[in-house]
């Protein structure tokens, strides 16, 4: 029996969510009195053994040229094969764009219950129950998994990384890889310094900023804070900012530790994408803006007067 953690990597490098999911899996395994093991597909530039500091002492690595083109269908088969070989009882993924396609397939293939978007360590005192957000962040549900094999995807920023010491042993694993039915013919990368989905801090602008020429107010603050930048729907629709920056119901849903909204009124569709943020700061000149009801801190004031002072204060702080 074991807790198997799927170690996702982006072109050979690890992300913050990798550390989070490894820590989560290690804590869960300890709670269940079992072993946490990692599964990594492909080659990485980064040293894999150093991932042992997150509490996972064995990482099984599948190296096969066939993995390069593997689609979610063939990756699902690979993981199912690994689960059988390693006798995993619980499988944990980070909840990412990639695993949104893999985890459900694996669930259906193995008839193993899935909780997508877990936000806490499962309660294993009586069965196996996992907390997640439902109704687009407006409520929580404790979901019980009834099957022998259990699958969890962990939301970004939901679990704090625990860094210990030690290295992981890398163990080669051989599995059968089937041909992919999906052919990738082109890739368009977004050149962002910090990815919106797993950023700790997000600085976001709305129509109140009046035009794309004023975005330095968002970008300067984001740069000083090491934050990702985002925007509201009207801003993306008006092409002031690229669509991938749009947070809200139809855009990206995020849960950073700090969300700073500048000139955004806070329509319910916007809140649906950001209401899981731990701390919300709202800067808006309209005291009636609905966003203030969901905020922890706020300033009722003109962004064009307030923001330069805030940026200067943060600059002083960071120096």
């Amino acid at each position: 029996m074991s807790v198997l953690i799927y170690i996702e990597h982006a072109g050979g490098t690890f992300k913050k969510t990798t550390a989070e999911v490894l820590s989560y899996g290690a804590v869960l395994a300890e709670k269940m009195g079992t072993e946490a093991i990692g599964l990594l597909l492909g080659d990485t530039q980064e040293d894999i053994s150093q991932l042992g500091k997150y509490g996972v002492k064995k990482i099984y690595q599948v190296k096969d040229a066939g993995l390069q083109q593997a689609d979610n269908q063939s990756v699902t088969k690979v993981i199912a094969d690994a689960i059988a070989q390693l006798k995993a009882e619980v499988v944990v993924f980070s909840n990412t764009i990639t695993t949104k396609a893999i985890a459900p397939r694996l669930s259906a293939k193995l008839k193993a219950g899935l909780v997508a978007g877990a936000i806490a360590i499962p309660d294993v005192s009586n069965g196996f129950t996992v907390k997640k957000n439902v109704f687009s962040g407006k409520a929580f549900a404790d979901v019980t998994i009834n099957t022998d094999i259990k699958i969890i995807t962990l939301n970004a920023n939901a679990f704090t990384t625990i860094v210990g010491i030690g290295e992981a042993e890398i163990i080669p694993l051989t599995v059968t890889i089937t041909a992919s039915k999906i052919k990738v013919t082109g890739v368009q990368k977004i050149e962002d310094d910090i990815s919106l989905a797993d950023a700790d801090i997000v600085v976001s602008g709305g129509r109140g900023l009046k035009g794309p020429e004023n975005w330095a107010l968002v970008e300067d603050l984001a740069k000083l804070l090491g934050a990702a930048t985002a925007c509201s729907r009207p801003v993306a629709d008006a092409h002031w900012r690229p669509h991938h920056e749009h947070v809200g119901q139809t855009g990206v849903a995020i849960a950073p530790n700090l969300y700073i909204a500048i000139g955004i009124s806070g329509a319910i569709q916007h809140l649906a994408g950001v209401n899981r943020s731990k701390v919300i700061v709202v800067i808006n000149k309209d005291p009636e803006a609905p966003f203030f009801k969901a905020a922890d801190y706020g300033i009722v004031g003109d962004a064009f007067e307030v923001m330069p002072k805030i940026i200067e204060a943060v600059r002083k702080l960071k120096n």
Partner: protein
Amino acid sequence: MKILVCISKTPDTTAKIAFTENNTAFSGDGVQWIINPYDEWYALVKAIELKEKDPTVTIHLVTVGLADADPIIRKALALGGDEAIRINVEKGDSYYTAVQLAEIAKSGYDLILTGKETIDYNNAAVGGMLAELLDAPYIALATSLQVDGSTLTLQREIEGGEETVEVTLPAVVSCQKGMAEARIPNMRGIMAARSKPLKVVEPIPATPLTQVAQYALPLVKAGVQLVSSENPEELVRILHEEAKII
């Protein structure tokens, strides 16, 4: 080409969320129900666009739900689609729902479209499960789709960008923003929807893999702490010294 569009009934985005039966069930009291926005705006409208380009395309809609889902499916038919199938059972967990949809989907559809997730349970799981049950390729989070004979060309979201992919039908595609522009049903569509076939079929036996033990509402926030616009530096001090977040 035969397209199957999966439709889910969800509470309206602005609905007040409340629970009954000792917080074990969602309370539908006073809730306005809608077609799950991603199913409507992106999956269904994309199917309609494909039929407008190629009138030989057939569009069937399918939903898992009791008779109270009929108004939703009629509304979907008012936007477009040739006929609808309702699987006469309450939607269960994602797996139970996917098993029911797969039973319909395997009867000869080339393209199966879903929204990227439902706004009630936010699992984003039914599409992938359906693909696995059908042993079909799955293109998740697609932002555009073109058909050329039996080849689909799609854009889909990936970590840090988008990619272009090709796949041979049959395939399952989950749709998101970019796929199509939302439409409003017109009077002609609403009239036509009344006479379109809505077939009711009984579910096949299946066991859910998960169940909700308990719901909870988030703690109400203490209320916003306002800082004077005369002294915005104070906000930075609070975030640094008190909230310890920057």
